[in-house]
């Protein structure tokens, strides 16, 4: 299939209307449909390329075909420059994928963010994840000016205002509101651990309808957190998706633990990797086991597989875990992915 004969009946001529919106849904998107239908959802993260080549995005996304319900396009993760989240999402919606636009408050102020929010919805994006963002010092441009005009909670409030009140923050009217399913993040594994459920409550109060968490390698801490979340009634108010990671070796795990902000990996996981004959396989087994355990926890709505530089193993881990049961998430028909190639 070449760029000229995309089946418009399937993709839609207007990328803003990929599917009809169902009763009681806030977005047109497939991701919201999966969660609201009560399925255990699987999401993953695409690493935006250091390239202007749209093919690269499609090749990376195709690795997840049939295994995930939504793909997060990171926004300058770790304060490193890559292709923008908005552009990655726009390329993915062309094929009908269900990308999650990540917005970090580090690089843009409220004027820019509101403009991008409208633009994303116009390009067919149905999901947004509100993040505060890593500090610029963590990345390859530590001399950059950090913006942080909003924080993740104000950002969710902003998008909620645009969608539900149909106005900008200034009160100026929107002709068509951005119909986005709003998400936020949570890290139950770092201090103040006893207040993390209260923090989750604030995120939900600000507008979050689904949550994606930081890596979970510590089940007891998660179970405590979920039990508090259930006591506060939060699992009824938002879909809580827990992050899982694919660790390739004990060395990488140790490096991540001490260098990536907010990553908590208990010693027993590291020992397991050290003692394994095939550490890479062991890392995938650990991930699949955690996913199975997540599915058993009351109030956990899905798993978010983060496999940076291990993306080719996401399918393997999902299959191994069996969390999807008989369900096969939507994927586009195979294409030759030459759409938009600059030659």
């Amino acid at each position: 299939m070449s760029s000229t004969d995309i089946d418009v009946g399937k993709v839609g001529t207007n990328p803003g209307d990929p599917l009809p919106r169902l009763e009681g849904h806030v977005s047109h998107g497939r991701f919201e449909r999966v969660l609201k239908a009560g399925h255990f959802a699987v999401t993953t993260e695409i690493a935006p390329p250091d390239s202007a080549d749209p093919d690269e995005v499609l090749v990376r996304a195709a690795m997840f075909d049939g295994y995930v319900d939504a793909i997060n396009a990171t926004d300058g993760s770790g304060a490193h420059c890559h292709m923008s989240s908005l552009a990655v999402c726009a390329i993915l919606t062309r094929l009908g994928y269900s990308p999650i636009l990540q917005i970090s408050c580090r690089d843009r102020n409220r004027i820019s963010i509101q403009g991008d929010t409208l633009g994303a919805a116009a390009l067919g994006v149905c999901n947004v994840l509100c993040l505060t963002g890593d500090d610029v010092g963590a990345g390859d441009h530590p001399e950059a000016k950090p913006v942080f005009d909003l924080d993740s909670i104000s950002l969710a409030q902003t998008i909620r205002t645009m969608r539900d009140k149909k106005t900008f923050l200034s009160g100026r009217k929107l002709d068509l509101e951005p119909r986005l399913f709003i998400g936020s993040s949570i890290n139950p594994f770092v201090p103040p651990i006893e207040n993390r459920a209260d923090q989750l409550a604030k995120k939900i109060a600000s507008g979050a309808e689904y949550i994606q968490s930081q890596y979970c390698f510590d089940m007891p801490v998660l179970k405590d957190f979920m039990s508090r979340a259930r006591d506060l009634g939060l699992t009824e108010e938002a879909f809580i998706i827990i992050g899982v990671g694919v660790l390739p070796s004990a060395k990488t795990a140790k490096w991540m633990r001490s260098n990536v902000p907010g990553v908590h990996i208990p010693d027993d996981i590291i020992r397991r990797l050290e003692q394994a004959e095939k550490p890479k396989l062991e890392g995938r087994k650990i991930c699949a086991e955690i996913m199975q355990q997540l599915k058993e926890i009351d109030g956990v709505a899905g798993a978010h597989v983060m496999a940076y530089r291990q993306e080719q193993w996401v399918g393997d881990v999902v299959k191994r875990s069996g969390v999807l049961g008989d369900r096969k998430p939507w994927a586009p028909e195979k294409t030759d992915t030459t759409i938009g190639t600059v030659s």
Partner: protein
Amino acid sequence: MYSVRLFAVRHSRFFEALYNFVNPAILATLRGITRVFGKKLDAPITAAEAGLKGLLFDCQMCGNCALSKTGMSCPMNCPKTIRNGPCGGVRANGMCEVKPEMRCVWVAAWDGASRMKDGDAIKSVEFAVDHRDKGRSTWLKLAREDMKQDN
């Protein structure tokens, strides 16, 4: 000063009581001053607020003071100036991701709030600051809002 700031959080209950006790008097005085002098004394009043709150809380004079809702820990000392924290990057020992030598401002905030009578105020969502207020006095702002309501 960092050590005084930590002291204020440890004694958040005392500072809350002190604030509740003196605040009406400060606002009443400022209303009186504003009526007589208009905006003529804004600069020294702002400087006094900056000096006092700077000493106690490392106040950054954002002009949108939220100390009573943040366990007496000023959120503007967070390197990301998060108003609804903490972020997910807090170190296992409770120190800041960006400045490892500093206790996370929001770990301190939830700790301080747990000791305050009205500590649950930290659970309400705060919107981002109005950047036009930077460097301006919150006390004068509150006093003038009171006057507007009175009129």
